[in-house]
């Protein structure tokens, strides 16, 4: 049951991710991306990381993507005109991008494989729980957490400054 659901979510996730990149209408891309995030949350739920899954929906699908939707909607981005062929870039640029992408894959894949195989078969029941995440944030990862808070504050002040010249 779990395995079947995993493959279902994974297939839908990859499908919607491809749709985001390949279709020409930015509005459809945004909607497909939201759908993809929902499927990713489904995979988190299957892993019993309910908290992470809920945050995935709440933060990414619920907040950030709404902003994307607003921007696309208000800027009135027209759908891209269809062009012939799959590759629209200059041949050399394309070659460079392919090399970079392969390099990226080479960098990521071995590490990911090592990570997956090193995890023991069983798992801790409360691994994704609110208490565990909170404890980790406020003990081992306190500094990054506070730095992120500072970064957000800076961004907030910057936004207010940009939006409202006269304060």
């Amino acid at each position, binding site marked *: 049951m779990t395995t079947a659901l995993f493959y279902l979510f994974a297939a839908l996730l990859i499908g919607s991710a491809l749709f985001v990149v390949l279709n020409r209408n930015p*509005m*459809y891309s945004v*909607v497909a991306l*939201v759908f993809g995030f*929902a499927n990713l949350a489904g995979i988190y739920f299957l892993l019993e990381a*309910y*908290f992470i899954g*809920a*945050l995935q*929906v*709440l933060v990414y*699908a*619920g*907040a950030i993507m*709404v902003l994307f*939707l*607003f921007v696309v*909607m*208000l800027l009135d981005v027209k759908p891209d005109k269809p062009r012939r062929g799959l590759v629209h870039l200059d041949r050399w640029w394309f070659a460079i991008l392919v090399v970079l992408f392969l390099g990226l894959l080479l960098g990521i894949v071995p590490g990911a494989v090592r990570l997956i195989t090193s995890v023991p078969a069983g798992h801790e029941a409360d691994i994704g*729980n*609110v208490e565990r995440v909170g404890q980790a944030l406020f003990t081992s990862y306190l500094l990054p957490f506070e730095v992120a808070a500072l970064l957000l504050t800076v961004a907030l002040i910057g936004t207010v400054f940009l939006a409202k010249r006269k304060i």
Partner: protein
Amino acid sequence: MIDMFELLAIIIKVLVVFAGTLVGIMIMTLAERRVAGFIQYRLGPNRVGFGGMLQPIADGLKFFSKEDVIPGQANRPLFLLAPLAVMIPALMTFAVIPFGAPMEIAGRVVKLQVADINIGLLYILALTSIGVYGLVLAGWSAGSKYPQLGGLRSSAQLISYELAMGLAIIGVIMISGGLTLNQIIAYQQETGWNIWKQPIAAFIFLITIYAETNRLPFDLTEAEQELVGGYHTEYSAFKFAMFFLSEYANMITAAAFMVCLFFGGWDVPFIDEAALGGWGVLLSVASFLGKTAFFLFLYILVRWTLPRFRYDQLMRLGWKFLLPLALLNVFLTGLVLAVKG
């Protein structure tokens, strides 16, 4: 893992909650018009069935039989998707709300709740935030300006009031120490209802659920005088009914949520439900339904007595009053908890 008994129990619970919500929506559509009639010193619909009891069914049949118009300038796929994107989250949200004391059947305990997940509150917040998409997409895809304005207004409003709502809930989470509604209700059974301990949070929450469900005095999204009908102006027949149903489903869920957070959920004061057996369960369900009905009635009363806010007033209320107040409440709650140890 899951045996036949549990599976059967889950299926029955899903059916009961689903049917219950739909019946609740039917009652609400009638009650709204009858109470409106009462308040405005007129009758309201009272011809179909006894005292207008069958009016919701007549409405449903009418919605089914009307012609379904899709405007020529509309973006077809998104126009069709939008009602679904509103309705599915609206009907899913009720799943984590416990509607009665645990029941014992054939020696096994059955919780009167569809899904007891350990992040129940976040589940509700997450689905609420997803509901915005339906409104925005409905407004945009219709391809005309009034729906678009309505969609923009509603999404800005939902995003603003979501923050104050989330922060108001945090106070409750802090004192009861749990993210599931069962834990919060159990805490209230032991120590009294949260309304006495978190009055500020309850006040903020009550205001924000009116904004979150797009009801007066915050129904700027469908301000008829300015926007014709808001984001669903171009919708007709059953798609329009879907928007309507979701609005009422959201109201029911919001009222039930309010009851669970601040008014003890299914708890009956001074009575030990577990000691009474089957009658206790019945009593608890009745108590839950009664409290929820009270808040739904309050929705209707407010709608027909208060005027609509202006848009900038709405935004100012959300950001400059409710949000700081909610932050203050979180701070005060933390202070009290720290002093108590």
